[in-house]
């Protein structure tokens, strides 16, 4: 395989499919964009030719024939791309942390989309598997890794089939495997199935899981970039992050920056769910307001009142109705200790009791806590008990103080993101819905009628 053959496949396929690629499934062409979801729902997921016809693998060719590995990292750094799985850490910076020395290194694609309500990675892997593979190969070239694992969550059996077929096809065409595109670059990809553990979306827990251990998180440092999978330098990126890399390399950093707002460059895919008229997956430029997102989801169901905007879950962070015009962007959200999250958005109406909702999530996180560190293992348990007390009506204001203190301890002292985010969950809940918590404790009043049964 070389660039000539790649171009020939592109031309032949374009002739064959006619105007199939002109299809546009967006319902709101002004607000929605198509960058990450460029190929989703448009190409045949099983056809590598159709992916190539959409400029697929041209970025890989450009990188390994024209660019040095450091240049690839530099372009990603310039683009301002941030990790799309919740933390929002700059991707290029993460790539730069990997030591430059030669030797075995690994790429892990984090496809353990454990956040309920988020189905973005699932859609991408089902609809456009090659973009993920190409992104992994590009990352592999940039850091000098020759092996990649896709850590796929157990609940996605269809993705497993699609990805395995895509890997086979790419190998057959010489786009993965040994001597890619006739150069000296080798890159293998293997799909590794998780087994249903929420904490295994955390970097060190994934590493433990692939190594054949319980999915406990490890203390950092050493960071995976230095000592990761099988004690080798390892880069871990989310599916959505990796799948947009080929387009950044092909079109340049400035092209990517033209979408979104400064500090939150690019687009983000959101799964809009909850009490909406038409829950769905949309891709929007960052910086869009919460109000606009609700409108894209068809507005509130049964004309009820909007109550809460919830990102992520069960590690939820929430905003109340007074923040409806807040732009969805990394700096703005960080200021309020809210995560942009992996893209799962639950919109809640006024029939929902926020104390009950918080209790549900904290209780679930208590079950999912790996138990490695004390703040998270004990903290989530105590928090769930205190919230239960509020729900029953036996709590006092002292208990609320305890909860606030506990949230702070969890946020600062937990070993990994799971425990830290529980602190954020409780903090944002008590911050945005303080009155509701107070009404529960002082007046034994639950506006939604869920508690005190």
């Amino acid at each position, binding site marked *: 395989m070389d660039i000539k053959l790649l171009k020939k496949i592109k031309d032949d396929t374009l002739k064959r499919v006619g105007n199939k690629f002109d299809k546009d499934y967006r319902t709101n062409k002004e607000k929605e964009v198509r960058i990450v979801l460029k190929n989703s729902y448009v190409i045949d997921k099983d056809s590598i030719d159709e992916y190539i016809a959409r400029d697929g693998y041209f970025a890989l060719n450009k990188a390994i024939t024209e660019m040095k590995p450091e240049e690839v990292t530099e372009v990603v750094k310039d683009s301002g791309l941030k990790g799309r799985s919740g933390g929002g850490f700059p991707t290029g910076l993460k790539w730069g942390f990997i030591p430059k020395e030669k030797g075995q290194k690994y790429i892990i694609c984090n496809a353990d989309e454990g956040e309920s309500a988020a189905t973005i990675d699932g859609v991408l892997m089902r609809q456009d598997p090659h973009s993920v593979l190409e992104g992994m190969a590009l990352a592999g070239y940039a850091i000098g890794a020759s092996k990649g694992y896709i850590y796929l969550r157990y609940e*996605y059996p269809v993705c497993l089939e699609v990805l395995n077929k895509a890997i086979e096809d790419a190998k057959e065409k010489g786009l993965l495997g040994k001597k890619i595109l006739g150069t000296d670059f080798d890159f293998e990809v293997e799909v590794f199935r998780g087994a*249903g*553990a929420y904490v295994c979306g955390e970097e060190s827990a994934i590493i433990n899981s692939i190594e054949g*251990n319980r*999915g406990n998180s490890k203390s950092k440092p050493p960071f995976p970039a230095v000592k990761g999978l099988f004690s080798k330098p390892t880069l871990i990126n989310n599916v959505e992050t990796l799948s947009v890399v080929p387009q950044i390399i092909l079109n340049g950093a400035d092209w990517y920056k033209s979408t979104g707002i400064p500090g939150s460059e690019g687009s983000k895919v959101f799964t809009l769910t909850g009490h909406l008229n038409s829950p769905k997956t949309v891709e929007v430029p960052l910086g869009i307001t919460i109000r606009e997102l609700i409108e894209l989801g068809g507005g509130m169901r049964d004309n009820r009142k909007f109550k809460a905007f919830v990102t992520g879950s069960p590690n939820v962070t929430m905003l109340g109705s007074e923040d409806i015009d807040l732009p969805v962007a990394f700096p703005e959200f960080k200021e309020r200790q809210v995560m942009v999250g992996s893209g*799962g958005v*639950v919109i*809640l109406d006024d029939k929902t009791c926020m104390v009950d909702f918080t209790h549900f999530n904290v209780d679930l996180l208590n079950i999912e806590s790996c138990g490695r560190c004390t703040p998270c293992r004990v903290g989530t348990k105590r928090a769930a008990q205190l919230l239960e007390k509020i729900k029953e009506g036996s709590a006092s204001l002292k208990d609320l103080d305890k909860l606030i203190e506990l949230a702070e301890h969890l946020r600062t002292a937990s070993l990994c993101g799971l425990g830290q985010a529980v602190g954020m969950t409780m903090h944002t809940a008590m911050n945005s819905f303080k009155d509701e918590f107070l009404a529960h404790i002082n007046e034994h009043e639950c506006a939604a009628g869920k508690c005190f049964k």
Partner: protein
Amino acid sequence: MKNKFLPEQLAEFEKSIAENAKDQAGLLKSIHLAQKVFGGVPVEIQRVIGKHHDASISKISGIVTFYDYFTSDIQGKNIIEVCVGTTCYVQEANDILKKVCEITKCEPNSTSRNKEFSVVIGRCLGKCELAPNVIINHKTHNKVTIDKVTELLKGI
């Protein structure tokens, strides 16, 4: 309780996991295979896996009990997975779970006495736009209501 396995089935399983044992990342694959072939990973099977992977039984047991999809009991004939992820929860998935447990006479995350049913609590099955979701014998049903799930369970 003692579990009995066919010798041919065991021999074939051992052959497969001997392959996995050569892979650095093979242990979880072997446990996955056991769950698929036997419907669970009881102590007898854990011992077999441990022998090939050179791992202690306590380590394997630790893994089996850690991950939601591994069970140390053999699961029932029909597996019903009710999603209680956040989106399903806010749309009353707990009531559906209660109903399923009532019909199948099963506690959540356990197997009924007659080995007919296993009820599993799911944590997001990735179909949140169509919540609430229930998987019955590997087939996903969307927008489930209590009436619908009663109807579906009658069908088995």
